[in-house]
């Protein structure tokens, strides 16, 4: 076999060839990684992307800040009589809304990823099938956490006081992130069904926008027309908002918590396998 040197002195080429042979000499195949380890590795991939392009975090930091300021100072006086009272009412709702808006991007990111050759490599690896998806969503959960933290901190700076203290705020944040993780599976499914990232974004916001506004984020549902009130009362996002408010204020929330966690479990059980199946078969 001829190893035609393509550059440099023959000795250099020989050294290169030797290094190549060394690198090629069989690396034995280790046991395959556990499902958790594979998923965490994909989560690490998500973190690396944020590290290389930190601007990606702008949408999860600037947008929530805008929401808090706009809704508090624009509607506060009109709806609650004072901006301070309204902030106390709206902050848990804006927390829910901002984090849930961010979940649409999980679908957009997956759709973008699919246009790249690297997905073929992932799909041809002997790993736990949903690992790339679970890992990506674990990485996205960090983004949800960032968005949520920004909102709570900003709220406290503007005068919001959680009745249940830091513990209550942390519990509310955790609940919202868990629900967001579950809801993300809906958008990853959409991300695999539609052709372009833009289509995913449009479809995603067309769904999430009315669902968050037609809830108890901004107003007391009792002020609404009866039909609308009925919808708002069954909207799972209302239950999430009520649960988040309850956790932050330290009031009882048992029933709402059950509804929220059951909805999250149902979304995951339906859409996670669906996403995995679509990811496997899209080819």
């Amino acid at each position: 076999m001829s190893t035609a040197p393509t550059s440099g002195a023959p000795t250099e080429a020989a050294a290169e060839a030797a290094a190549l042979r060394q690198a090629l000499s069989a690396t034995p195949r280790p046991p395959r990684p556990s499902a958790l380890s594979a998923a965490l590795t994909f989560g690490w991939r998500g973190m690396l992307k944020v590290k290389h392009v930190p601007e990606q975090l702008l949408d999860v930091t600037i947008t929530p800040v805008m929401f808090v300021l706009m809704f508090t100072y624009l509607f506060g006086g009109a709806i609650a009589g004072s901006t301070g009272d309204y902030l106390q009412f709206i902050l848990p709702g804006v927390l829910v809304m901002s984090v849930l808006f961010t979940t649409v991007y999980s679908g957009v990111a997956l759709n973008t990823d699919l246009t790249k050759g690297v997905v073929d490599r992932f799909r041809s690896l002997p790993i736990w099938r949903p690992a790339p998806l679970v890992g990506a969503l674990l990485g996205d959960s960090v983004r949800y956490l960032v968005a949520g933290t920004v909102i709570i901190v900003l709220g406290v700076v503007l005068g919001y006081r959680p009745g249940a203290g830091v513990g209550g705020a942390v519990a509310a944040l955790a609940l919202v992130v868990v629900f967001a993780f579950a809801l993300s599976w809906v958008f990853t499914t959409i991300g695999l069904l539609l052709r372009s990232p833009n289509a995913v974004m449009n479809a995603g916001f067309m769904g999430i926008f009315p669902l968050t506004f037609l809830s108890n984020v901004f107003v007391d549902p009792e002020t609404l027309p009866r039909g609308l009130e009925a919808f708002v009362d069954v909207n799972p996002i209302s239950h999430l908002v009520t649960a988040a408010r309850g956790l932050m204020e330290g009031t009882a929330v048992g029933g709402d918590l059950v509804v929220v966690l059951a909805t999250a479990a149902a979304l995951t059980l339906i859409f996670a396998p669906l996403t995995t199946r679509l990811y496997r078969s899209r080819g």
Partner: protein
Amino acid sequence: MTAHPTLAIEAIGLAKSFGATRAADGVDLAVRSGSVYGVLGPNGAGKTTTIRMLATLLTPDAGSARVFGHDVVAEADAVRGLVSLTGQLASVDEDLTGRENLVLLARLLGLRRAQAKARAAELLEAFGLADAAGRLVKHYSGGMRRRLDIAASIVVTPQLMFLDEPTTGLDPRSRNQVWDIIRALVAEGTTILLCTQYLDEADQLAEGIAVIDHGKVIAEGTPAQLKASVGSGALHVRLLDPDQRPDAERVLVQELGAAHAEPDPAALWAQCADADRAAEAVAELARSGVRIAGFSLGQPSLDEVFLALTGHPAEEHATATQEEPAA
């Protein structure tokens, strides 16, 4: 190299349609373990579809295939543990650095953190990418990306490697580097299925070749057998000035009945088995003022084989996707 009694790939009647298009229409392949096997055909012939079925990324509509005895559908996971894939789109993550790409794959293949880092460093060094290890892959040149892609495929040595057009779009120097890597891989015992639209590439590397067109294998054999099946020799002429190619073509048509352009803009060839007539044609070129850099009379090239087998030249398709500068 140890002789395996089994075949690395055995495909029977593999078929896959996308809508009304029959991308693969009954592909049969038998690839001996330890060799480079070339699958040769123009764009859209069904090469990539065939590879994707063999690599478990697509489920065949009909037919069956085994990789080292494992069925690609029923035992997909076992197959995934034996193969690795270098796709037509580079199968690396552009938004990560070269090192991160290799560490990511090493971790996914089960190496521990320290082992993964060491393996990545070793591969970057061997593939001449050590200096670029910390740079994002989107800033890599085409040749660097290909080398990283192949490095990513051998983080853990695969038994069978699919290379889908590994040199498309590369300059000649990077292409030679990739060829050296392929030769070294085979010397270490890996079986390679090489899809290419460059006949020259299959001729250089492959021990057996299947020529595929419209989703079917239309010819199969060693490069020598395929050439012999066409049966005649050819006169190859290289010109000093590519602008004179039309003149040269006219002369050769007149002398030998037909002439064909080659991918190299300064080269052309004509079918001709007789040395005297070839000499006469070259003399006529010189008389008519065409300046010749070199000429040779030899066996037909695979380009000619393809023309003879399919009735249309391979480059017609190939040039459409060729990004390679003529420099």
